[in-house]
């Protein structure tokens, strides 16, 4: 076993470090987790929950947490997959967990199928929602050759029951087949956007017209550039579909281009931060977020960049190329992390004409060693 990689800056990048550790079979030592916070030092409940999730996904993992919870030593085991049920705490939405384990999903012993319980909507300021991941990350799975063999074993994210923050009760099912190795990508042509699709979701709001008003407002913005816009309304009440006890209103919109590039944006009502926001304002905000994403360009969304980078390093020893709009701070940290764990340095090339960045790297030749041969 190789030496542990040490991090002294606490819970930053918590999920990715653990996941990189599992994928690279290198132990990690994370120190100073909220050590300055005298009130609540140490790991938060959602982080502990994430550790439990990893524990149920692996065999032979060892986790040592000190008394105050400010230090975590993690020794990775073998990824298992299989049927897992996970109860997420109400402090973080399901999206945080889902986003966290996505890079691991195709590398288990058997097909992964997780039922999450917790918050599904209303946290998109912090984390991508399940709907967002469904729209923007699932196409990426196919790009890397995951779940393209047959329909039975396709990658799926299904929201079984909605529940907005702050009280939980929603259910999300995530299913992902395993692969022996990923296929390298060459994803550099953004094409031209041909259609815009979206869903506006309302949760436990009596008037279903709220969702329609969001959709109408968003469409108003999009119609300036494209006629092919279609935004569904998805109104959930506790009576009809059964949803969580908290009200919520959100919008997920995505563009699709001639070359299959899908850019997605989402926004939601956040009472705590914004106070009362009109549904129209919400719709317009969501539309502008998407236009922002379009303006940045590139072939994938800003929020799934780190997933793409992670997998690009895990491809066979071939060149993977990807065009992105702009690097988010989170993805920059991912790049550094990948260098630390896998020794892969990306080639970053700014494309001046389109104001985008061309990323390319040579994969590490990662193979799913957990998968048994017959």
């Amino acid at each position, binding site marked *: 076993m190789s030496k542990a990689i040490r991090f002294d800056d606490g819970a930053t990048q918590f999920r990715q470090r653990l996941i990189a550790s599992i994928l690279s079979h290198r132990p990690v030592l994370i120190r100073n987790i909220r050590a300055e916070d005298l009130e609540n030092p140490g790991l938060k409940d959602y982080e502990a929950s994430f550790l439990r999730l990893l524990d149920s996904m692996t065999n032979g993992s060892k986790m040592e947490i000190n008394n105050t919870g400010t230090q975590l030593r993690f020794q990775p085991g073998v990824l298992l997959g299989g049927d897992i049920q996970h109860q997420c705490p109400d402090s973080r939405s399901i999206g945080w967990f889902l986003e966290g384990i996505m890079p691991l999903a195709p590398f288990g012993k058997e097909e992964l199928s997780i039922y999450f319980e917790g918050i599904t909507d209303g946290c998109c300021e912090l984390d991508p929602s399940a709907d967002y991941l469904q729209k923007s990350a699932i196409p990426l799975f196919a790009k890397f050759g995951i779940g393209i063999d047959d329909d039975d074993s396709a990658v799926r994210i299904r929201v079984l029951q909605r529940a907005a923050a702050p009280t939980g009760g929603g259910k999300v099912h995530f299913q992902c087949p395993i692969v022996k190795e990923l296929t390298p990508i060459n994803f550099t042509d953004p094409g031209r956007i041909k259609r815009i699709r979206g869903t506006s979701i309302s949760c436990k709001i009596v008037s279903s017209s709220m969702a329609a008003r969001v959709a109408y407002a968003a469409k108003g913005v999009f119609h300036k550039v494209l006629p092919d816009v279609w935004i569904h309304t998805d109104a959930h009440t506790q009576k009809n579909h059964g949803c969580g006890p908290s009200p919520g209103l959100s919008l997920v919109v995505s563009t699709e281009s001639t070359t299959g590039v899908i850019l997605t944006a989402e926004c939601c009502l956040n009472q705590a931060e914004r106070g009362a926001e009109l549904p129209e304002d919400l719709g317009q905000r969501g539309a502008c977020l998407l236009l922002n994403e379009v303006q940045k360009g590139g072939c994938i969304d800003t929020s799934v960049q780190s997933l793409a980078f992670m997998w690009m390093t895990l491809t066979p020893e071939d060149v993977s190329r990807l065009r992105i709009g702009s690097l988010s701070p*989170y993805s920059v940290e991912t790049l550094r992390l990948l260098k630390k764990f896998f020794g892969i340095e990306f080639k970053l090339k700014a494309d001046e004409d389109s104001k985008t960045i061309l990323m390319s790297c040579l994969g*590490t030749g990662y193979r799913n060693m957990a998968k048994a*041969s017959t």
Partner: protein
Amino acid sequence: MEGADKIDNHKHKESKEGRGAKEKKKDLKAKKDGSRKERHNHRAFSVANIVRTQRTIQRNLDRSQKKEYVPQKDRRSAHPNQSPPSLVVVMGPKGVGKSTLIRSLVKIYTNQNLTTTTGPVTVVIGKNKRITLLECPNQPASMLDCAKIADLVLLCVDAKFGFEMETFEFLNILQTHGFPKVMGVFTHLDQFHTAKNLRKTKKLLKQRFWTEIYEGAKMFYFSGIVNGKYLKNEVKQLTLFISRVKYRPLVWRNTHPYVLIDRHEDITHPNVTDKDPKCDRSITFYGYVRGSHLKAGMKVHLIGVGDFDMSIVSTLSDPCPIPEQDDKTLKKKDALLFAPLSNVGAVSFDKDAIYIDIGRANYTKNTELEGNNKEVSDREIDPEEPAGMLKGLQDIDSAVDEKMESAALRLYMGSKAVPAGYDYDSDAERDESSVLPSPSAHDDGHRAEIYPGIKVHKSDSYKEESTDTPEESNSDEDSTEGSDDGVEDESDDESKYDIEGGGGEMSWKRDITKHAVESFLVRQASKLNLKEYVYGSNGGIQVTDDQGEDDGESSDDEEFFKLKASSREKEGSHGSTKLSLSVLTENDSCRIMGNERVDSEVDRWLSVDSSLIESVRDKFVTGNWGAKQDGDLGSFEDLETGERYGPGGEVLSDNGNSDSEDESVGDMNDAELRDYHAKKKASLKRRYDQDYDEKKVTNGSETKDEDAENKYLEELKRQKEERSKMNESEFGEEGERARLRHEGFRQGLYCRIQIDGVPHSFVKNFNPNLPLVIGGLTPQETNLGLTRCRIKKHRWHQRILKCNDPLIFSIGWRRFQSIPTYSTEDENGRHRYLKYTPEHMHCFATFYGPQAAPNSGILAIQRLSGNISGFRIAATGVVLELDASFPVVKKLKLVGTPTKIYKNTAFISGMFNSDLEVSRFEGASIRTVSGIRGQVKKAAREGQPGSFRATFEDKILLSDIVFCRTWMPVQMKEYYNPVTNHLESGDESWHGMKPKAQLQIETKIPIEVNPDSIYKPIDRPDVKFSKLNIPKKLEEALPYASKHKNENKRNGKGYVARRAVVMESSEKKKYSFLQALNSIRNEKVKIRKDKKENKRIDQSKKSAKKEEALLAIRKAAKKRQYRAEGKREKAKEAKRQKVG
């Protein structure tokens, strides 16, 4: 062919009259009229021979099918210049002529005589081919190593003696570790006296060889030895085939880098070794990178020593390069030889010193020989001459420090020389200068002396080379060199690897200035350097702008830039441009955007002038399609060919470009011109191919299955080609250093790998005859855990394998000893423990050790050392699954006896020892010997501890035994011991854990016997069943038939016997007649029986006599045999004594 017209061949004579002419005339007429009828002769185009036609079609289809295959991933470089020399392993038992074969091959290739053939011998064999010859020692460990790295195996077999066990063992090893190409070499053919005998043996050997490898495997017959070498013609034949071999990609080598070590140096500081001779050493290893990319941060396995981190990896110039000139044939002077461990030329490597043979003892200066009028420079000393270096040293006219002061260093070919003392301001430069060696004494010492036999193709390029190869110095200089290195180590303990430019002339370099200008412009335009932004200025390599370099022919200029990069920088060392971590909070959210706020932008998007919307309008299909600018998203330029492609991949017309190119053709030099033409030709070919393919598509109107299949295969092939092209071109454009950083050290580069912490016994016990291999490991393979594999005892191995006996496994690069647990899979998927491997079947084995990817081959050997008779390979198999734990279970029967029985309930004791155990087994199913099933209920409060209440489906007997069938998990033994044979002295001295049986034999401990396992006579007392008592009440209730009858015993005979019978006379007559008949028959039977008995006695007497006679004969024969044997023994004994 002008004469062709004149040749008057016999023409067909049309008949002018007769029936044929008439018919024809009629036909012509009818044709003119239009009244001609189509004839329908149904046999006209029919198949004459149905079966044969069918077979022909079938055969053709089969053959075409056979040719098609899904293209395998092949990581070998397509360019011979960039691929490492292919590794030819010469294997064979002792005394078959392996070294002779290598010597003969080297003589043919380079016209040099090798005295010894230790270590790898690299030779250039063609204008774009070179091979490394390696002799495989006859030890299992080394055979394993050789099999893992060989590209081509020359199996030497003594034809006079026949095949030996080693050959078969080696073939088996090859099979499990990926089968490289194998060619047979049969030697000692001159020892056959008769041609017939020779022919017969050849045939036999061939048959055996072909069954082992494949029908038609290549074999060569070497008849005799002349001057210590095989006959020239015969060896030539072999060389022809060696140069034509096509190598198949092997999975393991496609995914792992490896380096066959040409030589190594101990660079530990002498002070340290003096203080503590047993301290760990830092050692540099030299060799070509083969397989996939060797990454600087990678863990490597030094086979036979252990796992290590590479502390420094750098490239060196190729010691045995392929000639650069594009000649038709290989020139004699380019046929280089590189064999650092063999006694080539004037330098010989001893264990701890290097000796240079200076030829003559008395030395005369060249100037004196040729007269003073001619100025002789260093360069004119022939570096190939054995004493060239020494002469060079003696020719020095000024002291070193003087030279240092006046020394000038030319950084690039054609650039101005930089004089000593010139200061650079930038940190980068300073950083480098600390590493750059002073261009003093080493500069004068030509590299050629170090590698004798290498003809230096361009001596001035060597002059400018960095000299971080301490081995260059002779033994005198060793100490200073070592101290230098020590200082260097201290100064850069941060640095994990440095990268040096190097290698041959790469294609990307040809228009490096163009790229340099382009990239410069890009960088000028961009506000900040992305690479620095992400990886920090220290994280990247301190680039002193290698793009600014001239594009001279010399590729060695780059060697100068020994670069430093730290793979794991400390936080504080990040450059100022690097984004600090503080942006990300401990929230761990991907939505944190730094200072970017979207809210304010909502208004801008919705503002009236909608300028922002206009800016993205062209990204939608509704936008302006023609607005594409030059270098827009879709089109790209192929950097290799200079071709431009549209968004759809179609070739854009490059009129503008070609015009300018045409102009520039005039002032190109030869190489450029050739390049230009090659490009042009390639582009033409591609265009033609495209057109042709399109035509094919349009022609084939029907889309048959076959077509679809072909298309699919073609598509696959095309994709593969595209991918390999992209892999090559992607990182090339930014310069060699960037390339090394992004993709690691690719195959074909000559590398120097420094490894720290190698045990001192490696240096002490180094044996140059054993191959030394460094294999790269993926992070997963450094993991220790359990491996489950499917394994089969080798059918030639004499004994079955016992569970928990240690075995030596060879998986991937590693070989290690571990303790396997054998198991078999039951129908319900349960893995049941096996004490021994089945004799002729596969079984599962689970063992602890470093893991390798599933589907890798496994080979098991019981012992490496000692004299082992028979086939040494114990088992072969394949890795199935890796995990942290595997359930293997053993059957366990718990036995108890009932103490008290109520109806269907019984209290059972003796099965468990405590109530706790019982509660663990509550609900478990139990059974009596008689087959009554039941269940464990609850622990009983009283009675023996561990007794419990159980219920059964029927009442059980007190004499019944109750048992519970359970499965015990078997604990795997976590033992793992790498075979470190390079750390041991002598040939076969590595000893691992010994199996129990061997220990018992060695220590003379008798086999321990478990008294419980001994079969004892079973004492079964007769059971006396008590009388059946039926209660009176029950009896009364029974029907009469079932009632017990009160029958008393009869006294005397019954009435039938007692009564008197008076017969009638006729009756009496009949009765007496029957009696008479019976007595007659009885008499007859008796006589027959007597006769038979007499005959039997006679017969037995006869046979006894015969037996007696035979016994005597047998006895005599036996006596004769024993006597002869005894005589032979005695003779042998006598001989032994005589010898002794």
